[in-house]
Structures are given as C-alpha cells and as structure tokens.
C-alpha cells in the first residue's frame, strides 16, 4: 500500500551539488535535420527559391527549439521530494516528486532504474529499492528531451530529505539450515530458554511424544506411573541478535534479512529482543520495540565485527553472520 502524502506537506529543499552542470546528448536526428537544413540552404542559394528559405527557417527553428528547450527545461527544473520514512528492499516504494518547471524524466539511483515524470507536475514515482541503506539525501538525475526528443539534457540534483529514508532488508523466513539451531526449537519457533531447566510447576502423566528428558524419574519410581515435569516458563527471557555483516551487498543484505527475520519472530513470541549491530557511529546495542525499529537499525548497519555479550545469563544469544 503506497503511502499517500498531501502535496501541500511537501517540503522544498534547494538542490545543490553540481546542479548547474548540464550534460547534453544529441540524438542522430539532430545531425539528420542539420544536414537537411544545409542541403535546403544550398539549394536556395543556387536556385533562388524563396520557399526553400522558409523550409530552412522551419527546420532550423525545429533544431533550435529541440536543442534549447531540453537545456532550459533541466536548468529551470526544481524539485521537491517527499519520501516515506521506511522502505524495504525488493518491495515497491513510492516517492512524491514535485517539479515546478521543465518536462523531466527522473533517474533515481535509489530505484536503480529509470522512471518518469513530465512536468510541471506533482506526481508519484514508484520503484523498487534493490539495496538496503539509509538515504538522507536523494540524488535525482533529471533528463529532459522535450519537445521533440532531439537532444537529451541531463542534470544531477541532490535533494535533502526531511527525514532519512531507511531501506530495511527483507525479513527472511528462518530455518535450522540457517545455522540457528540454538535459537529455534523443532517447530522453528524461538526457544524461550532451555526446555530442561527451570522450576517444576506440576507433574502430569506421560503422553506419547513427551521428551524423555522431562520424565521425573523419582516421582515415577514412587508412584509407579510415568510422570513428566511441567516446567514454569523462565522468568527472564531475552533474545540478543548479533548481526555481523560482511561480504558484498547481497551477502550483507542476506545477513541483515536473516537477523530481521529472527527479530520479528522474537517480537511475535513476546520476547524482549536486543539487536546488536555495527553502525557508522560504532557498535549499536538497542532493544528493539518493533520490526520497523529493527529495520531501521539494520538499514544503517555496516560491515564490521560486533562484540558478543559477555554475560549471557538467561539470554538467548544468536549471532547472525555469513
């Protein structure tokens, strides 16, 4: 579901960072038209035909307008961008871009693909961010070839976002094969403490399927029937997820995705979850309160070693790494 903004809530920020540089890429049609104009001009100078001068004027005007307007368009274009606070890799994200002047097609590296707008306009641009990251500013390459497509003028604009856009990794579905044996039980749920530890709350009759290690041998010997221990849940439960990123972008996003998947499961199970990551500011040890919070932390995570908790206590510590 795309986020919808009121256009009036857009905040305008001046574009900067090389905004004045306009790159030009004429199309082959320009040279063709130029050749045609020259040929007609030559013919007008040898035949004396006035109509040819008019045709030359039209073709030259066509070239002039077709070459000048894209340059004017990109030079005059100003942008305002409204972006959501959070996005997820591989999932559509919608930006609202407002361009006061100039017909533009926007190239937004965030989306890794060309998308279009024609201005003056206020419209939404949807794309799929391929990588995780935190975007405090957005580079938008505006491309204009209006009105005839004879020349493509491009200009890079950098727009500071009101709030940084965190592109979180996708939370991956976890399994034992992900090397998380200690953290998951047989059903793939988060282990809430060790099953053979804790206070015995009651003894019940053995039912097929009950783990043998929970059989209370003393009471069984005393009563003659197989009795199993029913344990109270551990009083203090905490899951510590240590996300240690390494490798290339895909590997990093995979690690982050697995860590996020684990965090989400922990939160769903009602366990307090700590997420340890390395950010640009150093090691970040945060207790996450929501998947979005975890997503932001993991969006900002960078490659580097993350220290493990020294005193595990009743915490379940899971290190997610390559």
């Amino acid at each position, binding site marked *: 579901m795309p986020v919808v903004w009121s256009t009036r809530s857009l905040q305008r920020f001046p574009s900067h960072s090389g905004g004045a540089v306009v790159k030009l890429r004429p199309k082959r049609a320009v040279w063709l038209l130029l050749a045609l104009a020259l040929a007609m*001009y030559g013919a007008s100078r040898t035949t*004396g035909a006035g*109509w040819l*001068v008019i045709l030359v*004027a039209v073709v030259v*005007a066509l070239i002039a307008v077709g070459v000048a307007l894209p340059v004017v368009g990109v030079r005059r274009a100003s942008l305002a961008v409204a972006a959501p606070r959070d996005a997820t890799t591989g999932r559509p994200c919608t930006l609202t871009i407002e361009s006061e002047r100039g017909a533009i097609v926007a190239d937004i590296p965030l989306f890794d693909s060309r998308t279009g707008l024609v201005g003056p306009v206020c419209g939404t641009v949807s794309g799929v961010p391929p990588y995780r990251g935190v975007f405090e500013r957005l580079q938008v390459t505006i491309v204009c070839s209006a009105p005839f497509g004879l020349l493509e003028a491009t200009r890079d604009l950098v727009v500071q976002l009101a709030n940084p856009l965190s592109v979180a990794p996708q939370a991956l579905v976890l399994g034992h094969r992900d090397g998380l044996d200690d953290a998951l039980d047989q059903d793939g749920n988060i282990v809430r403490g060790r099953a053979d530890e804790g206070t015995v709350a009651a003894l019940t009759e053995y039912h097929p399927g009950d783990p043998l290690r929970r059989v209370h041998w003393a009471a069984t010997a005393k009563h003659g029937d197989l009795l199993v221990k029913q344990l109270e849940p551990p009083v203090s439960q905490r899951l510590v997820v240590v996300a240690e990123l390494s490798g290339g972008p895909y590997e990093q996003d995979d690690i982050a995705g697995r860590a996020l998947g684990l965090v989400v499961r922990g939160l769903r199970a009602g366990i307090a979850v700590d997420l340890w990551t390395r950010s640009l500011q150093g090691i970040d040890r945060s207790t996450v309160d929501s998947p979005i919070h975890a997503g932001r932390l993991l969006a900002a995570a960078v490659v580097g070693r993350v220290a493990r908790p020294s005193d595990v206590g009743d915490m379940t510590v899971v290190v997610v790494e390559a």
Partner: protein
Amino acid sequence: MRVLEALKRANASGAPEESVAVRLAVFVAVMSAVFALAAEDIAGTVVTVAAILVIPVGFYISHRYRANDQLALKAGLAVALLVVLVNFLGALGPLAGGDITAVQVPLAEVFLWVQVLHALHVPGRRDLVFGLVASGVTFAVVGVLSLSITMAPLLLLWIVAATTALVLGHRDDVRAVGAIATEKQARLSTDAKAVARIGGVLAVTAAVVFVLLPAASTSRALAFPINLPKIESVASPGGLSNPSLGQGDPQQTSSDSDSTGIESRASFGYFGFAGQLDTSLRGRPDDTLVMRVRAPGPDFWRGQSFDTWDGTRWTLSDDSSRTILGDNPLVIPPTNGDALAVGQDFVATFYLERPGPNVIFSAARPVEVYFPDARLFQLRDGTLRAAVDLGAGAVYTVVSSRQPVTADLLRQADPLVYGVPAPIADVYLQLPDTPQRVFDLAADVTRDAPTTYDKVRALEAWMATNTTYSLDIPTLPAGEDAVDHYLFEAQQGFCEQIGTSLVVMLRSLGVPARLAVGYIPGERNPFTGMYEVRASDAHAWAEVWFPGVGWQSFDPTAKVPLAGESGRLAAAAGLIDWIQERLPSFVDTGMEALIVLGGVAALAGLGVVGVRIIAAHKRKRNRDRYEQHVWRLERLGARCGRSRRSGETLIEYGRRLAESPLRDSDISSFATDLTDWQFSGGDATEERSLDDRIRRIERRHRDLRSTMTALRVTLRG
C-alpha cells in the same frame, strides 16, 4: 536461411507505432506534400492520382498489420522502388546535355512514387519519420518549382502536422517511461496544449530565423530554367514586336491583325515598348501581373532605350541590330558606352505571365543569356530582342555584370572632367530646339553641384520638390515642348515626363544621357523570393553615362539603390510591404503595417497574459476564500475562549469547537468540508455552500451571545 535471417534483421522496423495520433499526423503531412505537388501541377496525373488513392489505404494497412513481419511486402516494395529509379534514369537520358532544370519534374515524380510505395509499409516510428522527412523533401522540390504562394496553406498544414507528429511521438516515448497522463481525456487535453505551446514557440523561432537568413539567390553554378511554350517567329528578324499593343504593335500589318487575338492595346500593354515613345500619349497599364523575376536583389528590368528626342517623342537613331547565335548561354558583347571592366554577376530569371514585347529584359549590363532559342539580336544601345514572340510561359535567364557602383565612385568618374568620347557625345548629347528657360533651370539648379553625380541628384531633388507625380495630367497642347510644359506649365507628370526632363536637362549641361524603358523591380514576394512585376510597374527613367562605369540608371520616382550600395538582401525583405498590401486600406505605409502587426501581436500577448492573470486570480481567490473562512472560524472560537492551538489542524480545531459551549456540530463538519474543498481544487457550487454555512454558524453564534447577554442582564437585574 542465415542470409534470410540477416536480411530480416537488417530490415526490422523496430517496435510498431501504436499511437494513432502520431500516424495520423504523419499521414496529414505526407498528403499535404502530395497535394502541394498536385496544386503546382508538377507531377504526372497517374502518379498524383495513385498517390491520392494509395497513400491513405497504405497508412491504414500499415496500422492494421503493424505488428506483422511483412518481408514479402518489403521485397516487393524494394523491387518497385528499383523500377521507379530505373524509369527516372531513363527519363534523364534524353535530357543529357540539354536543360538540366528539366530534371526537376521527373525528380518530383520520383519523390511522389517513393511516398506512394513507402506508405504501404510504415509500421514503426522510424518508417513514419522517414515519411515525414520525405514529405519535407517533396515540399523542397515543390518550393523550387513554385512561382506563387499557392503552396502556402499546404506548407502551413505540413508544418502543423509535422510538429504535431514530433511532439506527440516524443510524449508517447515519455509516457512509456513514466507518468504523464494516460487517461484518454487528460491525455488529449495535455497533448493538445503541448502541441499548441510548442507550435507557438516554433512559429516565433522560425519567424526570427527567417528574418535573419539571407535571401535566396541564384548562382552561376547551375544551368537556369528556360522555356518557350510556343515558337512563333517575329515578322521582321531583329525588329521589335509587341502584340500587347494591338494595332500599335510595331510588327503589326493589316493582314495579320488577328494573329494574337489582341486588336486594341491590351490593358497590360505599355506604349513605351514600341519603336517610339510619344510623351503626349496618356493611359497607363493596369495592375495585371506581367512577369515574375527571380533575382538576388532589386534592379530596373531594362527593356530598351531611346536616344533621339524631338520635343515630344523619343526614337532610336539607329535601329540596326547584330545577330547573336550559339548554344546556351548566349554571350552578349558590350556596346557603345558599356564598361569593359568585369563587374559582379547578377542573375535574373524572367517568368513571363503575359504576352509582351520581344525584348529581353535584364539588369544592366547583360553578358550572358540562357534562352530557349539559339538566336538573339542586339541593337547598338545594348537592347536585346528575340527572334520569336515571347508569350505567357516563356522563361529565360540573363546574367548581368553590374559594376559595384557607389556615390563616391560616380563622383570620381565624372564625364565633365574626363570628357565624353565622340561616339557617345554624337548620339547622347543631341537636343532639339528647346526653350532657353529649360537650360537656365538646369544650370541654376546644379550651380552648387560639384560633380555630374551631384548634378543628377540636384535635378532629381528639384523635380521631387517642385513638381508632382500624377497619372492624371492634361493633354500636351499642340506644338508645345513636353519638357518645358512639364517643368513650367503643368508641373505634374509621370515617369515619361520626369525621365525625359532629367535627360534633357542633363544633356543641356553636357552630360550624356538617354531614356530607358522597362519595369521597376516590382513587389518582392518574401515567400517565393520573386519580384512580381505588374503592368503598372512599366517605367521610363534616365540613364547617364559615366566614364569607366558605363550607363547608370537614375530615377527620381523609383527607389532602386545603386548596385554597390544595395547591401545584402534578407530573406524577409519586402515582408512588411507584402503584408501591408494585403491589409485594409487604412494602412498606408510599411511603418503603419508594422504598427498594426505589432498591435495585433501585443493584443494577442495581452490576451494570453489576461487569461493567465484570471486563472491565477481564481486560484488566489480560492486560497483567499479558504484563509478567510479559516480566519472567521478562528475568530468565532476566540470569542468563546477557544483559540486555535499551535499545530492544531483545522479538522481537529473544528472538532474541539463543536464540543465547546457552542455545541454546534455543524462547525466540525464545516471544518472538514472546508479542508476537503481546499485540497480538491475548489468547486464553485461547494464554495457558495461553504459561504452560506459559515454565515449560518456565525449567525447562530451571534444569537447565542445575544441570548447569553440578555440572560446575564436579566439575572443581574
């Protein structure tokens, strides 16, 4: 198979064009080119009819089967194009060594065939663009052959269609990438606006470029068009023939009076193109278009000259001629008084529209003539005559060698300083018995003029000041000297009197001069680049001899610049005059025409600005109205102790007010509706409803306050 695949790849049309609008625009452009060819009657009937019938069908089929790979059709079209090319080359064969301009018509036919065949397979954008360019080239071919503005509306249509095709094509490309309106209504509206806006910018830019470009000109690099629709020899070779004079035709005999079908002088016939010029005759030719001249600049189109004056008539002292024979171009030798120095080439092509004299018109001095007959005659004064009658449709080109004459050069080449050779003096200083006061006047007017050139200008200035140009002058009394009568009695006359007086007065001062007749340049059509010469442009003027320069034309009534001072002619030269001619009669001068055009442009600009101001005002009014309502609501709240909090939205504020002691639920819904209205673009009906609602709310609040006040007073009481 591999070759076939390679062929298929090479001939792939790219993605099919899905836009019907782009296809339609290109179709209109192509058809306008076809109709332009047809209107100018350039191509043959078969190909023209084929084009009109086949191209629409071809465009439809191309659109219908745009996604199909029609290799067989392409192969067929390639073969057909090859046949057309072979036919074209075959048509060129008989023209080899002949008139190269005759290639133009087969070339136009080739272009038309290309349009016809190409129209059968235009599935993609690239094919359509090729069609567009080909139609432009077709217009160029038509433009070379067109002598009138017949093609103007079709060219305009082509420009509009081509612009539309290009703009819509580009917008379609952008639409494919992104988010311009794709809904049909919005698309039509925005596309139409874009086309109109770009069309306007393009029109203004093209107009500016047109004004800046130099005028089209002819060059000696190519052969020139020549044509003679009917070859009919004049009765007396070397003699003058002028069927437009009817019975006054110098070659007319009683036996062949009906040969031309003109018994009396035609309305466009000029009595000056005869063996003599009688200045006592009256009656000017009308405005019939007699010829078009394609030339790089204005000049006198000189027909012939007279050297002998008898007080009322001009004649030629020596009517003998020499024959000039040869292939094109016929080389014209210099004659008595001509400058021998090589001057600047001035190429003028004459397209005759009416039968006229058999004189070959030219700018002075002709050196080469491209003429459809291999024989010309040259008189001693340089006049050229054809051996055949020159009827409508005759075309010939004259290359003149013009000395780059300036006022300074003429001041230095003074015949009164360097002397006049006897052969020139004998002929061109001759005067009959002329009243002394004419001589006295000439001497008096030129007393302060140091050179011959200045004397000529002084005499011109005197006549411009002291006499009046008029076509309605009294008949010359019998026995009167025409010059004396013009200068001292009537003091009004037309070119024959004025030119004659100038010649006579100059001769009285010892300056060799003669009277030339022909046409003034005529109105320059800025579109065709041709001078349109009308019968009323027939003219007589003085030619003055300057040593080393030759004969130089002077005329106090026609503004024709000296060859060395004419400057570069702009493409738009004559545009203002041309428009002025077609504007209502209250516009008399070029400046007035410019003012009227400027006024129209300013009005149009004001209209556009006005519309924008109204739209902006409407937007502002909506915004103001919103703010006004917000302010009234805030005032209402403040009065009951519920001021708006910082950061509180209008809807939240409305809700809070509704829960206040006011207990008015309408306030909350009003705040919500007001917000919706503001952000939905401001519908006028809703605006009126909001006005009513805020008024009702305020009225209820006033009533409540009054009641409360009354209650308090009562309680106190």
